């Protein structure tokens, strides 16, 4: 296997982390729907927390993406 194809495979492997991120974001919004359904009045407060959690989880996806970019282009 030459270096170029190894790089492409490595970049592909690096973004497997997105599976975990998908599960995490799904959990966050499932919990958001649950809590808003139980107590609609809490929507404003819970929504901010959910967005914060979403951004923190999404950052993990972007770390994987950055690693993939580094493998591919740097």
């Amino acid at each position: 296997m030459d270096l170029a194809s190894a790089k492409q495979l490595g970049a592909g492997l690096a973004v497997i982390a997105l599976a975990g991120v998908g599960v995490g974001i799904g959990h966050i919004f499932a919990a958001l729907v649950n809590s808003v359904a139980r107590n609609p009045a809490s929507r404003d407060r819970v929504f901010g927390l959910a967005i914060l959690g979403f951004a923190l989880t999404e950052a993990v996806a972007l770390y994987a993406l950055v690693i993939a970019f580094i493998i591919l282009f740097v």
Partner: protein
Amino acid sequence: MAASGSIDALSQFQLHPVLGDVGRTLHIAQSNVMMLVAMVLTLLLLWAGMRPRALVPGRLQSAAEMIYEFTYNMCLETIGPEGRRFFPFIFTLFLFILIGNLVGVFPYFFTFTSHITVTLALTMVVVIMVTLVGLWIHKLHFFSYFVPQGVPKLLLPLLVPIEVLSYLSRIISLSVRLFANMMAGHVMLEVFGAFVIMLGGLGLLWIVPAGLALAVNVALIGFEILVAVLQAYVFAVLSCIYLHDAVHLH
């Protein structure tokens, strides 16, 4: 880009000297110019917005007041009553990143937050200030922050290094989060923009997929605006949380 058959996604982040010979001598890149633009826009928003001082605010004044109140409440809620002292810092940080992110969405504009040097510098300012604030308020007692309470003494040699490491890794996580979000978004825009050009060049039959790619690009711009605001908010709120930790020690 289309001619060579590969997508050159990262060249959009390259820095070029601007303003001719003056810029070349002083090392002024488009990134620095955009920082000045962000600063001027921030000052304009606040100055022009608050100039009427109307009791019933107009559109611009509402925007200025809303950003102000939003950040102020965020400071007070996250840090506590002491948050008032840190509000100017958080407000400056939030507006600088917010305007920088938003300006970068416009075509032909440069996003200075898509460079790790910029976000790392901002993060270093935050982390060093948080550490100094902790040392200033609690003196040497600040180091008890790294000693978790209510754990067996036997575990401390293991836990204290972990706490120190997690404290230091804030530098990486905070800076890479903002940088990676902005960079990934702009790479995505570039990739779909390249799709439009590549597909459009293939012939009449490929107009429809090219249009689809263009539609995706339009949606992505909307998503980028969301991410720009969200990441500025996240950066500010995490700075607030770190300040809370430094002020209250857990």
